């Protein structure tokens, strides 16, 4: 007997309002949940991406200088038995960093390009799927692999060209990479990227120091120092300092299992205390930390926005119970048990919750489909913001039903306490 449906139709306006309230809450839940799911999958993806990889960062010392990793340290690490590769990674803004054209650029970071040596790039093959073209190889110079989302956005094709940091690169491959900040949107050979980055700075620094050393005051103060050599050393150390802020080192262990990776990371921490050693767990932990605050915020906002729907259901069902006292008494008189009466109201409340949830889900899915491309267009980064997972939709639907049943339980239990004799008297 579809009586619950008929009962819902009895108070169309009131029930529609209640359903709208529930739908609004579920809408919020799905939108925020889809954001949360996106962040969660970013954590998962970065865990996968960093598996079997240790990243060395340099620390800024107490004088405020980041001296980078010395050659001695690198040699020491290379000499370790457990180590397969130690390779530099240069990570830069793919479009350069132009605060003039984008004053809020630091808040809305653009895509990244990474310079990797060929052999090093090969170790990423298991994590980054090539869709078209080929991988970086020896002899490549201004050749670039581009993430699919960026290729789509800029209409880049294998064989075409792409502008990276004001230089033209030939597109040799297009790859599918998870949408994680850690994973670059472009991969190019290390050397040309580094040279293009360093050379102009080196030239400028050298020119500056050369001019300085020509001043009479300088000559008088240090007459024995060869100006030529000084220019070079000063400018190089100046530039190295700059570079070390953008360059890190990847250490690839021979044993790339989690145990092997962790063991090597531990050893590096002990032997090179001056370095920050980040292992896959460390990455995941950092990502999780970044995401956790958002998830908590999401949960709070979801609860707040669904509480309104819940209260509306309580109100609606309480009114329904009062209006239908006589009907409840009649049902009791013809043999409905208190439990059956309670169940009828719970079913009705659950139906309100479910209908609200279905509408809320439909609206949110529609909104995401319509709004996501526009938002992505503005963000100029990433391929996705909302991740609609099946479990999120199931959660939203069950949340709606559960909320309905929970909110309906108080009024429903009142229905079971209706006194039939008193209610049917003189009606």
């Amino acid at each position: 007997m579809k009586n619950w449906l008929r009962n819902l139709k009895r108070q169309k306006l009131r029930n529609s309002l209640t359903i709208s309230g529930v739908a609004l809450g579920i809408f919020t839940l799905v939108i925020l949940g889809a954001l949360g799911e996106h962040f969660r999958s970013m954590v998962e993806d970065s865990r996968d991406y960093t598996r079997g990889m240790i990243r060395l960062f340099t620390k800024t010392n107490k004088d405020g200088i980041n001296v980078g990793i010395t050659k001695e340290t690198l040699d020491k690490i290379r000499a370790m038995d457990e180590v397969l590769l130690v390779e530099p990674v240069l990570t830069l803004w793919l479009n350069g960093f132009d605060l003039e054209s984008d004053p809020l650029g630091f808040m809305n970071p653009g895509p990244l390009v990474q310079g990797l040596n060929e052999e090093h790039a090969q170790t990423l093959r298991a994590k980054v799927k090539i869709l078209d073209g080929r991988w970086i190889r020896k002899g490549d110079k201004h050749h670039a692999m581009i993430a699919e989302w960026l290729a789509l956005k800029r209409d880049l094709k294998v064989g075409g060209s792409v502008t990276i940091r004001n230089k033209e690169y030939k597109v040799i491959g297009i790859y599918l990479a998870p949408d994680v900040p850690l994973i670059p949107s472009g991969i190019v050979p290390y050397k040309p990227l580094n040279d293009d980055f360093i050379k102009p700075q080196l030239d400028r620094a050298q020119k500056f120091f050369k001019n300085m050393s020509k001043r009479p005051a300088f000559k008088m103060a240090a007459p024995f120092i060869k100006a030529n050599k000084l220019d070079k050393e000063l400018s190089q150390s100046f530039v190295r300092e700059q570079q070390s802020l953008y360059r890190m080192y990847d250490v690839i262990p021979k044993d790339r299992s989690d145990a092997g990776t962790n063991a090597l990371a531990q050893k590096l921490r002990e032997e090179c205390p001056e370095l920050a050693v980040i292992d896959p767990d460390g990455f995941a932990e950092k990502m999780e930390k970044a995401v956790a605050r958002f998830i908590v915020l999401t949960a709070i906002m979801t609860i707040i926005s669904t509480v309104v729907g819940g209260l509306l259901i309580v109100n609606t069902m309480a009114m329904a119970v009062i209006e239908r006292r006589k009907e409840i008494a009649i049902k009791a008189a013809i043999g409905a048990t208190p439990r059956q009466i309670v169940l009828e109201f719970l079913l009705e409340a659950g139906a309100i919750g479910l209908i609200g949830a279905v509408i809320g889900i439909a609206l949110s899915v529609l909104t995401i489909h319509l709004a996501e491309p526009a938002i992505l267009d503005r963000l100029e980064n990433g391929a996705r913001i909302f991740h609609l997972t099946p479990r999120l939709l199931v959660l939203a639907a069950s949340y709606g039903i559960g909320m309905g049943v929970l909110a309906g339980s108080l009024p429903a239990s009142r229905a079971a306490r209706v006194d039939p004799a008193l209610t049917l008297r003189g009606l």
Partner: protein
Amino acid sequence: MTKETAIYCSGLTKVYPAPEGHLEVHALRGLDLEIKVGEQVAITGPSGCGKSSFLNILGTLDRPSAGQVKVFGQSIEDLNPKERALYRRNTAAFVFQQFHLIPTLTALENVSLPLHYAGVNAEEARERADKALAKVGLDHRKGHLPALLSGGEQQRVAVARALVTEARLLLADEPTGNLDGATAKDIMALLLESIGDQRTLIVVTHDPEIAAQIGRRIQLRDGLIEKDELSKKVES
């Protein structure tokens, strides 16, 4: 032939608690009564003498304040809410003065509702409800909502609803009180003819003409039995 006892009451008392600053109401003051299986009984008496209170107790819609009630050998004064519901489902069925149909359900659905609560499957419930409606002469109106039916028709639906289960005790509280004379007669005739001789019928009425049709008449006054008489035709 000595018939089995359908209803046995002893010292049956009902006191309604007093509202603030008022006296309590003694609706029943110790009824002693026995009704046999298959008997038809009219309860008469002035308004407020306790007729409905008595019927409600027999139907477990209410509990007595004191005394004993047994229906078909079962004590009903101390049943818990679920047992009372099962008792109303299986043993006692009501017909009310105000018909008390569910306004959102069609005639057919109203009649099959007791079966729905009894867990009878939808198809069988439908068939049985169909039959019950046909018996009261309403098979052409089964799709109608109560609001579209006349008072007499609504009461026919209510009678069908009371007879659709196997309830052995039919409790009718002024079933013709809201009907005009001719219709009232029809409904009484329907009730008397459709209950058969296995069911026990108790009809509350203050219409002497209706009471006269019924074999045994119990007259209440102030919560006590004033008169308990059998018609000659039944006595013989």
